């Protein structure tokens, strides 16, 4: 028995919107329904007619459309550009930080002129020893002076 529902099914069948089971059902229905087949043929004829009546836009119109709206090639997308720019800024800041002149440590400033002061202290020590007449072995004094001079050299290199 033909009904509008069958025609709806014919439309869905033709548009490919029925699943496999639905298609099989409709094909079985169609086999026993001349009106269904006639309606389906009308749908197909409408489609053929519409296809034959298709118009083509003027080539100049298509060219104008392409000229005005054709996408321009994008070398880099905006996120890539932003990422590269950020990386460059960070790298520049890091290079500037690492390449700056090393500051002279304030706590080593006192070592300036240390050698002269050590030499003066040695002379003063010898003078005191002589004035006291102490039996100070000169070798002991020399050892002390050597130690002081070594310390001065070390601090001088660090400074």
């Amino acid at each position, binding site marked *: 028995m033909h009904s509008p529902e069958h025609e*709806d099914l014919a439309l869905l069948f033709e*548009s490919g919107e029925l699943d496999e089971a639905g298609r099989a059902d409709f094909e079985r229905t169609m086999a026993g329904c001349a009106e269904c087949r006639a309606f389906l043929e009308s749908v197909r*004829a409408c489609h053929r007619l519409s296809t034959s009546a298709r118009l083509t836009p003027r080539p100049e119109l298509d060219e104008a459309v392409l000229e005005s709206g054709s996408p321009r090639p994008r070398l880099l997308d905006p996120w890539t550009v932003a990422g590269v720019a950020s990386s460059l800024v960070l790298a520049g800041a890091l290079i500037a930080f690492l390449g700056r002149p090393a500051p002279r440590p304030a706590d080593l400033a006192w070592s300036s002129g240390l050698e002269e002061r050590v030499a003066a202290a040695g002379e003063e020590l010898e003078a005191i020893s002589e004035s006291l007449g102490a039996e100070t072995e000169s070798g002991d004094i020399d050892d002390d002076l050597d130690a002081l001079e070594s310390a001065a050299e070390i601090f001088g290199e660090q400074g």
Partner: protein
Amino acid sequence: MDDNGEELVKRAARGDPEAYRDMVTLYGPRLFSYLAARLRSREAAEDAYAEVWLRVWKALPSYESRGRFQPWLFTIAHRLSLDMLSSESGRKSVSLDEPVEDGGVTLAERVGSGEPGPEREVLGRQEWARASAVLEGLPEEQRQTFLLREFGGLSFSEIARAMDCPLNTALARMRYAVLKMRSAVEEHHA
């Protein structure tokens, strides 16, 4: 065609001008046919055609492929044509049945005659002239449904979404349109 179309759209979205050209070539005739029939005016169809592609181009970078570009394209065309028709009261439109050339030749007759117009259209046949007269007489919703299906290639689910109506309504509109055009179609095949 849809698979190829989707690939073209993806390439165009990446900025490939050649893909854009191929896309216009692939979808252009369907789109132009739809707009010409929908707006009943060659001039308006050309304006709309350019505008639709411009909108597509603007939206392409954010276009997310959900399987079918064509329904998206024709939904844009459908909405634009609605806007144009609603604001067209002061504008001269040319019906398929109104004379558009010297000598009283109608657009439908010219399309059906096989005679190339100044726009060098690929012309239909006499049967289309008869069918288009029937199409002209359809209620607007039936006509829209028919055009979206036949020129736009939209499924009925897509037509229902584009026209914001239930699926059954879209099917009923198409059913009536087909039945009313049946005589013209059958005459063509007689």
